[in-house]
């Protein structure tokens, strides 16, 4: 999923301070699962903002709507009946959802209420960790199902570097060394010999370095 965390309250208040009526929108997908921008978080933020405005002797009218999927134009259409009553839109979706709202409602300022983080998985309740960088040319089949691009701090394809200590990365004892994990998994699979195959320089064009990416599926167009 795409993970996110809410921005600091002061930053959100600063963005919307010129406005009296806002449309606060959540998303029922990834940000709901990572407890950053679903229906519940929308309600909590709405109350907090109204209290903050009241303390300053101002009022804030908040309309709360949590969309099924904010990155999908079809669902964003559901905001049409309420958009005219709002001076601005505050979105708790990931960056994709925020941009879809901005694209659809050209005359309204749209602000993000969360910082989008990474594509990750849940490790345990309350903990999410990065798993994929969307490099566009997956190497997981060669690395025991553990991604060196996303999980090695130096994204090195032929690790481990000289800083791997006791299974941990040189940058922090809280970060696993991806190449220790890869090696352990290759051993479990009896694929030790595969370790000595050199992974050649990556073609980063399939990643962000080739410019903004699109997928075109003619069979679905």
């Amino acid at each position, binding site marked *: 999923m795409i993970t996110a965390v809410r921005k600091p309250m002061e930053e959100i208040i600063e963005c919307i301070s010129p406005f009296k009526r806002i449309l606060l929108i959540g998303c029922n997908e990834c940000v709901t699962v990572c407890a950053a921008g679903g229906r519940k978080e929308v309600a909590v933020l709405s109350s907090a903002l109204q209290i903050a405005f009241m303390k300053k002797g101002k009022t804030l009218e908040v309309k709360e709507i949590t969309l099924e999927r904010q990155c999908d134009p079809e669902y964003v259409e559901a905001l049409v009946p309420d958009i005219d009553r709002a001076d601005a839109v505050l979105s708790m979706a990931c960056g994709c959802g925020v941009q879809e709202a901005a694209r659809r409602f050209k005359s309204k300022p749209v602000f993000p209420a969360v910082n989008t983080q990474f594509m990750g998985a849940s490790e345990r309740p309350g903990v999410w960790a990065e798993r994929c960088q969307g490099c566009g040319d997956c190497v997981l089949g060669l690395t025991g199902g553990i991604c060196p691009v996303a999980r090695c*701090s*130096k*994204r*090195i*394809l*032929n*690790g*481990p*570097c*000289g*800083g*791997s*200590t*006791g*299974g941990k990365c*040189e*940058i*922090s004892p809280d970060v696993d*060394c991806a190449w*220790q994990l890869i*090696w352990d998994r290759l051993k479990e699979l009896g694929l030790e010999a595969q*370790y*000595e195959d*050199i992974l*050649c*320089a990556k073609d*980063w064009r399939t990643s962000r370095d080739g410019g903004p990416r699109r997928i075109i599926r003619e069979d679905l167009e």
Partner: protein
Amino acid sequence: MKTESVLEKILNAGHLAVTSECGPPRGSVPEKVREKAEMLRGYVDAINVTDNQTAMVRMSSLAACILIRQMGLDPILQMVTRDRNRLAMQSDILGAYAHGIDTMLCLSGDHPHFGDHPMAANVYDLDSIQLIQTVRDMRDNGTFQGGDKILNPPQMFIGAAANPFADPFELRVARLAKKAKAGVDFLQTQCIYNLEKFEKWMEGVCDRGLDEQVSILAGITPMKSAGMARYMKSKVPGMDVPDDLVKRMAGVAKDKQAEEGINIAIEAIERLKAVKGVRGFHIMAIEWEQRVPEIVERAGLYPRPQV
């Protein structure tokens, strides 16, 4: 012979090679580079010039290498893949060779987290093994990484680093094998304090015949004090300093500890000379370059052979 590198000539003639290093200054101060390099003149075959070591901004390795080359000495251009992409690295290699620099060391480098710009973008377009492949292809095929032909391809003698003390230990010989396969010519190791563990690693290296493919220079760093020994033991990633060595340093009076550190380094060199596959020494006296001549002399590595 693949190149005109003095280091290659020394190794090819069967001599034990001696290299040392010089960290460029944190400012535009060419005198500092010259001062450090001058101390090493005649005592080492080539001088490594570090590339923003510990992820701190310093004068570029290439610029400092040129200064050293102009003094008639032989620098080793260190290049980390952390700060620059393949375009920038290859253009620097062309520039280095154009200035008569023919020996380099391919490294991944410390993560920016450790340095004075932890907020910097972390490039890693290539890793150290892919950089070795790139430099080898530039030399042997005369092509850039992108495939185009090079005009007067740089003939670099290619080095890399190895840390026999990092984890997992069982992978450390295999990683060297990958560097050998990528085309590395010589290798400088991390500072060796745990001699037994190093010897065990070398056994593994020799069992696979890797010592025939790659010239291995053992890394030696004299300790200045018991405090430094403790710091290296606990704070430097991938460093293995045995307890008895820390005790030995702490066991002598403070004003004698530097002397003891030098003695330990010389004893290590003497012992490692007998280890199969050790082809020389890389003496990294960090901000202590003035003691290198004494270490080289006392270790019986002086005078340096003329090749």
